[in-house]
């Protein structure tokens, strides 16, 4: 129970008033000379159970009347989660909305989404509480918006649904910054989310910062979490895995790979109608789905031969969540996959060219070029997808150019130099690239096998059919260690790193601890693993070369596109329900065009994952912070905070009536005194 005017509860001792009056009354007795003592004595001898109880009941109801009145004027609130909100309604409320696509899921039998429900409930609650200052934090720009009095949260641009995932830790940090910047004495942070693990990023290191920073405010900043963790049973999501144009003779077609995922474990066969739109021309088709998931590879869609590149859209029928029912894609003839090889060791360079120059598919154009140190300056880096480097690490302008290439989405693989260049006094090589530098050769006891490798992601992951690459058969004879931040992908027994990835915001940088020469390893002789790894890196990197790209909303690539194109991106096709004012390329799903560049922005696939935070994790995230949580349901617009003074007033009136009824003199059985009554 919480109150809007809690200081009025100071008057609660007044409930003792009837008891005090009763006691005073007991002391103010009168003395009467009385004749009919025999009746009084007889009455005294009778059981006084009910009479005594009646007295207590009367006192109790009188107390209740006063208590009801005091509680009513203290304006009580009916809410299970606003325990400590009493008396704090005049403070600032910072509203953080999870606007990710999963929040657009509708409740059963209602057209209202989780986001709409949350907005409406927040608006009503804050209005009831009479909060003076409502700050809405934009999950996209992380900018605070101060709502004017009477302005609804739902009407604000910063509360509209978006196609990007929500970064809850970032929102909380922004809220923290707002509290600190404005030196708010007290603030309530109102958070509405469906608790999707992807949005909350429970393992993110920022949570530690958030907890520690908010703990400094002690109880002055409180969190109110309105959670909608309930998933939809029959929701189906669609995701495009790949879309590319290919030519078959004189005809052209789009090869579309997509995946349908249902939220329900079922073996029932069902037909899913698909609406496919290519450059504005719609068509219908149906796929059969018998399990919870269906993946379609290279679904052929004929297009005009003259269409070198274009866009499309694939959609499934409406279900619980409209936001995950359509995906946009762009396609084009795959650009040539260009590889540049710089090697000190000529035979190794040939081996690398062989591995990089053989196309994995007939319609792919693959080029691999060996360059000398002098020719490096003339390499057109903007057209290069993959750089294979064996030798001393690049430096100066060359390194800057390579970094730009990686930043654009390109990929670099470094192999150990033939001889380690000059070492510093401490024994380490001085040159470094991407924060990593070669260290020293690792002593190996003859041939060693690769002991462990990442088979779930990256270059050495399992094939699409689920088979593992034969990494374990590889043998390593020479290994060079390197220092710097990197994630090992393959290691030999004893911990020597064979392959590692250096973390970058875009593109990819790999360091090999060995080289494919027969003296160093069997990478070349057992060439499957090396070829696959190389081609995977090439395929990944070549995506950045094309003029048509499919990017995730809110991803760094999308952000960069927005920055690069400023507001020049033209929206070709977008979701109907996206608001008019929302034209931000980075976070709004749709097809965009800037000159000859095409981009399809879609929600991140992580948004389709139904995993939500469990209670223990949530408790851990907010450990030591004052958090009130209430679980809602989409479409349930019952007020979060409801004034219930009427109930108390009614209770008071009822108590008054009961008290009056109890206080009424008993139906008198006094004698009928009538002189005319005959005695017999």
């Amino acid at each position, binding site marked *: 129970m919480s109150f809007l005017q809690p200081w009025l509860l100071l008057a609660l001792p007044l409930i003792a008033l009837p008891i005090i009056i009763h006691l005073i009354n007991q002391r103010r007795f*009168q*003395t009467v000379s*009385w*004749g009919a*003592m025999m*009746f009084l004595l007889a009455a005294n001898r009778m059981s006084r159970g009910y009479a005594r109880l009646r007295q207590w009941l009367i006192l109790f109801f009188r107390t209740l009347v006063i208590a009801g009145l005091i509680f009513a004027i203290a304006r009580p609130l009916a809410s299970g989660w606003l325990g400590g909100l009493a008396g704090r309604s005049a403070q600032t409320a910072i509203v953080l909305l999870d606007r990710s696509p999963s929040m657009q899921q509708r409740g059963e039998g209602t057209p209202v989404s989780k986001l709409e429900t949350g907005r409406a409930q927040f608006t009503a609650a804050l209005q009831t509480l009479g909060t003076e200052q409502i700050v809405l934090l934009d999950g996209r720009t992380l900018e605070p918006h101060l709502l004017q009095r009477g302005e609804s949260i739902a009407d604000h641009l910063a509360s509209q649904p978006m196609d990007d995932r929500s970064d809850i830790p970032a929102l909380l940090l922004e809220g923290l910054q707002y509290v600190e910047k404005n030196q708010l004495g007290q603030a309530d942070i109102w958070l509405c989310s469906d608790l999707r693990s992807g949005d909350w990023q429970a393992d993110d290191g920022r949570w530690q910062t958030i907890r520690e920073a908010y703990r400094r405010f002690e109880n002055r900043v409180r969190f109110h979490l309105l959670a909608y963790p309930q998933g939809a049973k029959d929701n189906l999501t669609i995701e495009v895995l790949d879309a590319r144009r290919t030519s078959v003779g004189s005809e052209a077609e789009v090869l579309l790979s997509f995946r349908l995922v249902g939220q329900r474990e079922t073996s029932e066969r069902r037909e899913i109608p698909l609406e496919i739109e290519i450059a504005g021309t719609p068509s219908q088709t149906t796929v059969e789905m018998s399990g919870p998931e269906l993946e379609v590879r290279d679904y052929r869609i004929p297009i005009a031969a003259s269409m070198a590149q274009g866009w499309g859209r694939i959609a499934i029928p409406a279900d619980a969540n409209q936001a995950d029912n359509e995906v946009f894609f762009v396609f084009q003839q795959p650009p040539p996959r260009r590889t540049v090889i710089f090697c000190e060791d000529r035979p190794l360079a040939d081996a690398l060219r062989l591995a990089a120059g053989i196309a994995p598919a007939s319609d792919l154009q693959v080029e691999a070029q060996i360059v000398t140190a002098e020719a490096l300056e003339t390499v057109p880096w903007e057209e290069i997808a993959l750089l294979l480097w064996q030798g001393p690490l690049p430096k100066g302008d060359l390194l800057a150019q390579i970094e730009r290439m990686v930043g654009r989405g390109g990929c670099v693989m470094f192999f150990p130099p033939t001889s380690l260049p000059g070492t510093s006094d401490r024994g380490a090589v001085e040159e470094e690239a991407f924060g990593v530098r070669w260290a020293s050769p690792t002593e190996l006891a003859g041939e060693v096998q690769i002991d462990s490798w990442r088979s779930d992601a990256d270059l050495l992951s399992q094939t699409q059919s689920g088979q593992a690459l034969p990494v374990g058969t590889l043998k390593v004879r020479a290994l060079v260690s390197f220092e710097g931040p990197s994630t090992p992908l393959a290691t030999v027994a004893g911990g020597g790193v064979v392959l590692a990835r250096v973390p970058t915001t875009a593109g990819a940088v790999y360091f090999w601890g060995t080289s494919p020469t027969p003296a160093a390893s069997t990478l070349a002789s057992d060439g499957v693993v090396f070829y696959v790894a190389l081609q995977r890196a090439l395929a990944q990197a070549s995506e950045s070369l094309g003029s048509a790209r499919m990017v995730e909303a809110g991803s760094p690539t999308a952000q960069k596109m927005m920055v690069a194109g400023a507001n020049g991106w033209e929206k070709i096709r977008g979701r109907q329900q996206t608001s008019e004012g929302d034209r931000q390329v980075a976070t709004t799903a749709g097809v965009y065009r800037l000159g000859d560049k095409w981009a399809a922005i879609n929600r991140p696939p992580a948004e389709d994952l139904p995993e939500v935070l469990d209670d223990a994790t949530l408790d851990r995230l907010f450990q030591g912070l004052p958090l009130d949580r209430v679980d809602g349901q989409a479409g349930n617009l019952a007020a979060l905070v409801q004034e219930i003074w009427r109930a108390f007033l009614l209770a008071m009136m009822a108590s008054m009536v009961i008290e009056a009824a109890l206080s009424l*003199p008993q139906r008198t059985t*006094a004698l009928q005194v009538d*002189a005319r009554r005959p005695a017999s």
Partner: protein
Amino acid sequence: MLHNRKQRDYLDPHVLSRLAGLSLFARRPMQGNVSGKHRSPNRGASVEFAQYRKYVPGDDLRRLDWRTYGRTDRYYVKEFEADTNLRCCFVLDTSGSMNYRSQQWSKLDYAKRLVGTLAYLAAEQGDAVGISCVADGIRGALPPRRNPSHLRQLFEILDTTLCQGGTQLVPILHELAETTAQRALIILVSDLFVPPEELRSCFQHLRFRKHDLAIFHLLDPQEIRFQFQRPTRFLDLEGGNPIFVEPSEIADRYHRALEEYSESLQRVVLETAVDYTRVSSDQDYEQVLIEFLTRRMRGRGG
């Protein structure tokens, strides 16, 4: 008729004059010594036929009904009712409880009005009146006489009587039943704060002695309603221990006790054929007396 000039507030001449047309009758034959308005257990000469009775030797031959003898050839004596006066004995309760008043008159004041007026009426019609003032004993007594000066003495007793002491009504009534000559009209004016079952034997005793018992049961309206607002300490007018009670708490039980008492008393008076009149001291005593006298007249007629 009254020669004293003393103003007695319990005697209202207007009331007396209005009641003068009514007579006080006994419900059963009374035994007086002179002729009067009341039936006598003896047969006498009057105009009111009583019965035929077989002649027995010793009967006055003048009373033989010759006509009947002519018709039936049997000897019958024709008897007529004999009217006589009565001895009216008032028993006035003067215990402490009779002193209670919640309004203008105490119960004793009211009782004096009833007794004074009835005594006057009885004396007026030639009946002998006497009085016994009782509390924890007989405080004052005047045997029934029928001369007007005797009435004055009765009024003197009424003037001087005071309420004090407890009630010993039961033994006193037994005593009066024995000491009063048979076939008298006994009018008891009391608040009867005695267990009704104890009164039963008194009433039966009086009935056995062929007395006609009439009771005016006097109660104060406050004693009936018991309406007190504040906690109250009740001091016993008859000298018992005081009681402290919360009236609102005890009122219903008080009323229940009063009701039980009343029902019990009602049962006793019905079974002992007592002429019982319950009177609240806020009632108009003239009206009470009119009802009483009228009822007794009807009783006589029946």
